[in-house]
């Protein structure tokens, strides 16, 4: 069966086979979900086929009326090159190249001119006329990558799921497995290698530049893991890692300290290119949140485990938060209960992180939840637990325990920011910029986040939400080789702060549980 290209939106290109199911393809790339498992029943995986040959509508599609250009992806078989558009209301594919970064194109890592043999970190690499570099953000759940020219132009980008989900979903579980069992460790190593090697081979890249959190990056380069397993949490090295993946040279971004890995380093150097006045705060919100406070002469950095509450919403033994509502706003009060308007994709069976923040902020403003996080009015009681309905007809609600979990996640970030500002001697009012990195941040309503204290309350015009900053950071390193050749100078400026070891941390954390602006 022959290979075809599926163009999603304007620029995302996926490779598929003739005869492959379109829904399965899009779901595999995390672009849509298949709520009914591809059964054609729920009608929620609809896409627009703009161009190209596909199979005729099935009986399910005829039943639901998707017989024109709108089709159900799960019922559609790819017959050739396609152009498809995700249904309006669906979240857009991650825009990895949406860069506000304008790197100084002064001193590229490999010269685009002339090609031929060039030396890099003691290795000779043969660069042809059409040199290509693979940039990899080796995430815990997703491996995002870009193929770029030495000049930083993005030729292709995509992401694949981690091949490590059977070793645990979080890095600490994987680390424990790898430390206990040498075979597990070898398996992790070879799987990561083969995924990256395959991508590199498919795109004929000459060089691989990779960044991950300290655990993932150490897995990839087969570095000693022991230091990461326990306090004081030290990666095996703070230098640029140089290795071969098959016949290709692979370079790992320097790991800063503890769980601040090469990805955090990439975040930081990308932020340098944003031309934001110092001091500024950089927060990469995720399961593990990295926080930087960048001053003129020095950088303060920390990490804090914010839990899964932000990325996947929360679930306490219920099916309430299984993805769905991505935007919500309280529009009024009826019978003393809050009324919400919301948008969803796939199905309104759950609430996603950014919507959760908006809902909580509105409930707080409306006085349904008090400063301590207690639900005080407008609620129903279900099995002894207070719940506030977002939409009762769809059994969509937020429970008291859910609020507690979000409070803990917020407190992790809030206390981190507070301590970093304290240690750096920078007050909120003197901040000149606030960068929110990570895909969660792109969809976040800044004002809502400020209401709850997830981010400091600063003038809105100094807040920038950048999306993924790791790949842009690696691009910056491609364009300005100093960031890799001279990383030591930058690392020396970074002061890492260990929150649990900071005096008064518990008091600040407990105080940060309050849903009040920071």
């Amino acid at each position, binding site marked *: 069966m022959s290979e075809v290209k599926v163009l999603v939106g304007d620029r995302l290109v996926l490779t598929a086979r003739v005869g492959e199911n379109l829904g399965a393809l899009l779901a595999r790339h995390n672009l849509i979900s298949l709520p009914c498992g591809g059964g054609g029943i729920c009608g929620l995986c609809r896409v627009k086929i703009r161009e190209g040959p596909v199979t005729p509508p099935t009986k399910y599609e005829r039943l639901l009326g998707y017989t024109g250009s709108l089709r159900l992806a799960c019922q559609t078989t790819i017959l050739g090159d396609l152009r498809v558009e995700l249904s309006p209301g669906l979240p857009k594919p991650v825009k990895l190249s949406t860069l506000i970064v304008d790197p100084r194109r002064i001193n590229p890592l490999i010269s685009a001119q002339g090609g031929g043999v060039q030396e890099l970190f003691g290795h000779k690499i043969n660069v042809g006329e059409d040199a290509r570099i693979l940039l990899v953000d080796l995430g815990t759940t997703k491996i995002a990558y870009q193929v770029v020219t030495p000049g930083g132009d993005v030729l292709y980008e995509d992401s694949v799921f981690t091949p490590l989900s059977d070793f*645990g979903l979080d890095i*600490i*579980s994987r*680390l*424990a497995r790898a*430390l*206990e069992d040498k075979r597990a460790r070898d398996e992790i190593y070879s799987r990561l290698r083969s995924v990256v090697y395959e991508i590199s081979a498919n795109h004929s890249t000459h060089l691989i530049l990779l960044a991950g959190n300290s655990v993932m990056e150490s897995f990839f380069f087969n570095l000693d893991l022991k230091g*990461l*397993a*326990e*306090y004081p949490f030290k990666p095996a090295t703070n230098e640029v890692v140089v290795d071969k993946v098959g016949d290709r040279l692979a370079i790992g971004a320097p790991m800063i300290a503890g769980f601040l890995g090469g990805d955090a380093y990439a975040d930081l150097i990308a932020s340098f290119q944003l031309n934001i006045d110092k001091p500024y705060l950089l927060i990469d919100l995720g399961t593990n949140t990295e926080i930087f406070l960048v001053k003129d002469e020095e950088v303060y950095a920390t990490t804090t485990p914010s839990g899964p509450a932000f990325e996947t919403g929360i679930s306490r033994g219920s099916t309430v938060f299984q993805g769905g509502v991505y935007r919500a706003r309280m529009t009024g009060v009826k019978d003393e209960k809050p009324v919400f308007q919301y948008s969803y994709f796939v199905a309104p069976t759950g609430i996603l992180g950014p919507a959760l923040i908006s809902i909580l902020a509105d409930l707080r403003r409306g006085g349904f939840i008090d400063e*301590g*996080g*207690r639900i005080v009015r407008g609620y129903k009681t279900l099995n*002894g*637990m*207070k719940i506030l309905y977002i939409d009762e007809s769809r059994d969509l609600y937020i*429970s*008291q*325990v859910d*609020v*507690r979990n979000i*409070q803990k996640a917020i407190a992790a970030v809030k206390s981190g920011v507070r301590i970093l500002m304290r240690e750096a001697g920078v007050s909120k009012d003197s901040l000149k910029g606030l960068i929110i990195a990570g895909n969660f941040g792109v969809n976040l309503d800044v004002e809502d986040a400020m209401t709850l204290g997830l981010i400091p309350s600063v003038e809105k015009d100094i807040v920038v939400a950048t999306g993924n900053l790791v790949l842009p950071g690696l691009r910056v390193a491609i364009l300005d080789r100093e960031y890799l050749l001279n990383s030591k100078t930058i690392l020396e400026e970074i002061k890492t702060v*260990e929150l*649990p*070891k900071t005096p008064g*941390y*518990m008091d600040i*954390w*407990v*105080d940060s*549980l*309050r849903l009040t602006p920071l």
Partner: protein
Amino acid sequence: MAVEKARICLVNLERNCVLESVKAAIESGVPATEIVLGSLSKAMEEIGRLYENGDYFIAELIEAASIFKEAMKILEPRLKEEASRLKTTRRARIVIGTVKGDVHDIGKTLVAIMLQAAGHEVIDLGVDVPAERFVEAVEKYHPDIVGMSALLTTTARYMKTVIEELERKGLRRSLKIIIGGAATTLEFAREIGADGWAPNAIEAVKLVESLMGIRDE
């Protein structure tokens, strides 16, 4: 009824009201034992329930424990004078710590606070505690229970090392060992040979009391 008022005020976290009600109850001749058992302990149980359904949160727990402690200070001289039932009820002595390699303090400290509020004696070894220090503390304090905490899967494994070390020194048999923390589960506790596991500070108090035979659970 000052005793009843003290209970209600403690549940509502009204410090002055609790302290005044306790004093008033003493003055009107209510035995200190009855104030503790009939009022304050009941209030703490009620607060535990409120915590578990999310109505109360960490700040409320800490505040409740702090008020309880202050009230106990007023009551203690009286309890000693009375041939108090509390004296015959066994209170536990617990050595507690976050194990080596782990510096997470909050969960363990909350457990210590709640145990103390429930009248137990707690020796807190802090964080990053190696097996030798647990052994030393057991030899020195002869506790009824050793409690260990860990937030990380990688450091939780170390609990097994501590248990083995206590066994090697012949200290294990006279002890109950309980564990907790985000990286632990009931299965894990069984696997490493601990006697009990609790998911939070409230449950930890119940666990200690059931291991001590104070509770009929």
